[in-house]
């Protein structure tokens, strides 16, 4: 019964949203009637609340193990703790789409109600948001209904959530990511409303600035958590795979980052306004593209849901429709938008726009990497995979140029050209210092890889230029934008950590008999196989090896295990991990060889934790920017 009520509430929301759109058809788009707006607002708020209550009831259904609902029966289980009963809702397509819509609705209702009641763009924004929510609710109910019952008899027990999804990181990773993705519906619909309205005296930047910043924070955390989960939980031994779904999350992130930067420029000095608008639209379009790629099953990936083409077609046509709507209005208004003000070359804005171009290049390269296999396949039937080498080759020069522009822009001024002398002074010290440190790293590691060195050098350029600026700020009281400094230091650290990880990490296969001891390399000495123990646990036998080694003088003891399950003779192996600030050591035990020795696989991953630390810095920088009293 509760299932039906929940279903009915969602259907009612569809009805109310349609009503808003139909009712507003009777009025001119540009005229303002207070009562018309008031009525639309009421309907809209009610529709949003219907969605929330409907979802709340659905959560209740999941907690109370209603296995007559097909979706809950196939993704939850009565034995699960309540926490995972709730998170099982977003462990597959239907429920996660529902959550996506709830977030869309939440952002929309908060934003629309935050606008002043006489705000000239309020009505048009409301209509855009209604249209978008309506389209996705219909998608949910028509092609992926989470309320479907198993009739006449429900399942007695649920099929259980996939065990690897029973993890706290997974419980928050999708919601964070969705909050980020759909948060940009605000810039999308507000800018579209602005363009529809056609009153270019209005200012729009301030109204959506902080909303977009918050959405960016969620998106960043979501992406970072996803890579954390892949590394620690899935034991993939890596943090980023250039998987299609990681790529489609990175595209809106890059667009959002570009958008924030150009938003600063356009509100600081009235330039790049058209460009900023375009980016504001683009972020949400890329988010929709991501939803399409993941949910249509067009590319198989770690994240794909089992799907049917009908869903893909619906998503494609609806996303295409609203994208086209926004972009056509943009194209139509383009001649009126061109602001007469030009960017002063050598000013902060000019370097910032250069980096905007680089970020767009990045987006385009990823887009090409994602779609290229599809293009080739549809033309020749041949299958190609595009892997990390493509992305690494493309991104390292982009990163270098970006780092150079960031370095210069640290000391550059808004709206004023920088003299060559000033430029020379500000870049010399960081560049020399970066070169020196790069040389030291080369001396210390004796490894050379051009791509990684470009990455390390870029990281250093950013780190040192901010370091100098901070010193200058401390002694000479020169102004420093704290939020920006923290975020960019995070970026510099990220480049550094990722590149160092790629050159230093290694994997070794070792053969040892119990009691033997060997040196693996200069930093890893006395790898000794002390003992092997066999004991019985509840339903399996355990073979456990006691290993210790000296890593850079520090003694580390690890006990990897092999388990043999009695019932089926299945053998599983449990790796042992030791983590420290600089590196993680992974040790897995293999098989016993004929001569009595055992095989071990040892993986050393450097600077891996630094990657998430730098993401945390970027987020903190953003928070500082939002909560600074006088922003911009």
């Amino acid at each position: 019964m509760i299932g039906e009520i929940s279903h009915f509430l969602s259907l009612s929301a569809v009805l109310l949203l349609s009503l808003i759109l139909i009712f507003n058809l009777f009025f001119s788009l540009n005229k303002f009637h207070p009562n018309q707006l008031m009525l639309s607002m009421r309907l809209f708020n009610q529709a949003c609340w219907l969605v929330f209550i409907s979802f709340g009831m659905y959560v209740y259904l999941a907690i109370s193990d209603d296995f007559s609902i097909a979706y809950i029966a196939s993704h939850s289980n009565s034995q699960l703790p309540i926490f995972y009963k709730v998170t099982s809702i977003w462990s597959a397509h239907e429920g996660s789409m529902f959550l996506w819509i709830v977030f869309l609705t939440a952002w929309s209702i908060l934003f629309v109600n935050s606008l002043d009641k006489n705000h000239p763009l309020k009505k048009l924004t409301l209509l855009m948001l209604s249209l978008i929510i309506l389209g996705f609710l219909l998608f949910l109910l028509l092609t992926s209904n989470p309320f479907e019952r198993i009739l006449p008899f429900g399942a007695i027990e649920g099929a259980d959530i996939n065990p690897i999804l029973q993890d706290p990181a997974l419980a928050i990773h999708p919601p964070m990511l969705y909050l980020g993705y759909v948060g940009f519906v605000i810039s999308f619909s507000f800018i579209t409303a602005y363009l529809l309205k056609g009153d270019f005296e209005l200012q729009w930047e301030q109204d959506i600035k902080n909303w977009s910043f918050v959405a960016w924070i969620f998106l960043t955390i979501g992406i970072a958590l996803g890579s954390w989960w892949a590394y620690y939980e899935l034991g993939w031994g890596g943090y980023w795979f250039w998987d299609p779904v990681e790529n489609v999350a990175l595209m809106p992130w890059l667009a959002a980052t570009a958008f924030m930067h150009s938003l600063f420029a356009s509100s600081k000095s009235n330039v790049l306004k058209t460009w900023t608008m375009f980016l504001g639209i683009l972020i949400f379009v890329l988010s929709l593209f991501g939803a399409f790629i993941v949910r249509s099953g067009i590319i198989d990936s770690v994240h794909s849901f089992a799907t049917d083409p009908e869903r893909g077609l619906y998503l494609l046509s609806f996303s295409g429709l609203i994208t086209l709507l926004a972009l056509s209005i943009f194209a139509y208004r383009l001649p009126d938008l061109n602001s007469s003000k030009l960017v002063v070359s050598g000013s902060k804005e000019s370097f910032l726009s250069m980096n905007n171009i680089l970020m767009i290049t990045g987006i385009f390269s990823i887009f090409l990497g994602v779609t290229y296999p599809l293009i080739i396949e549809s033309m020749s039937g041949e299958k190609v995979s595009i892997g990390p080498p493509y992305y690494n080759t493309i991104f390292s020069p982009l990163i270098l140029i970006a780092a150079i522009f960031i370095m210069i822009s640290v000391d550059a001024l808004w709206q004023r050209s920088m003299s060559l002398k000033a430029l020379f002074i500000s870049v010399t010290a960081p560049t020399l210092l970066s070169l020196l440190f790069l040389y030291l790293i080369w001396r210390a590691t004796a490894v050379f890889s051009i791509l990684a060195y470009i990455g390390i050098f870029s990281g250093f350029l950013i780190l040192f230029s901010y370091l100098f600026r901070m010193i200058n700020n401390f002694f000479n009281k020169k102004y420093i934008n704290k939020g920006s400094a923290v975020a960019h230091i995070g970026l510099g650290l990220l480049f550094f950590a990722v590149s160092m990880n790629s050159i230093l990490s290694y994997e070794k296969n070792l053969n040892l008999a119990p009691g033997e001891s060997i040196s693996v390399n200069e930093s890893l000495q006395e790898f000794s196989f002390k003992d092997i123990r066999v004991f019985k646990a509840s339903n399996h036998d355990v073979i456990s090896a006691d290993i210790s080694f000296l890593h850079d003088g520090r003694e580390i003891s690890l006990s990897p295990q092999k388990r043999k399950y009695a019932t089926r003779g299945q053998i599983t192996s449990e790796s042992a991990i030791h983590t420290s600030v600089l590196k993680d050591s992974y040790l897995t035990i293999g098989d016993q060889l004929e001569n009595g020795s055992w095989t071990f696989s040892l993986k050393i991953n450097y600077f891996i934790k630094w990657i998430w630390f730098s993401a945390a810095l970027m987020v903190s920088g953003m928070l500082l920017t939002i909560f600074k009293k006088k922003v911009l």
Partner: protein
Amino acid sequence: MNQLLRFLIVILPILIVVFFAKVLLVDEEIKFANFEAKNFPAFQMNDLSGNPVKAESLDGIKLVNVWASWCVTCLVEHPFLTKLSKNDIEIIGLNYKDADSKANAWLQKHGNPYLFSIYDPRGDLAFDLGVTGAPESYLLINNKVIGHIQGEMNQIKWETAFLPLIEKAKQGS
């Protein structure tokens, strides 16, 4: 210039949408017909219990199925693969971007239709093979890949795509 820009802003998304619609609607049959036989990539890997995989173990008629414990669709096709493994064909698993402990636990829970599973935690072999994700299935005859299916393996795909190939190969030999 401005006119061209305005035109592009509208026409590019339309082209992209049309392209994806076309890809979505492409008949699966055509994909099978276009497949070109190629050699199975050379590899040196262990199976899930840690033993090295011998190249000879791929001789004869084999089905190589890419799977992982995190893969939802793999669970969907699992009963059908189990059925196939009983009397139709020998199946070799390619455990893709997974952790061996989790993969073994998965097999223990759901049953093991595979002769053995090649353990490919980083997806190296899968990359050489052209795998885009799990599940995927490859039909092998004497170390040559002669057929490929993306996504869930089921009765219809088995009968339309792989059975004719197997019969042809048997007649040939």
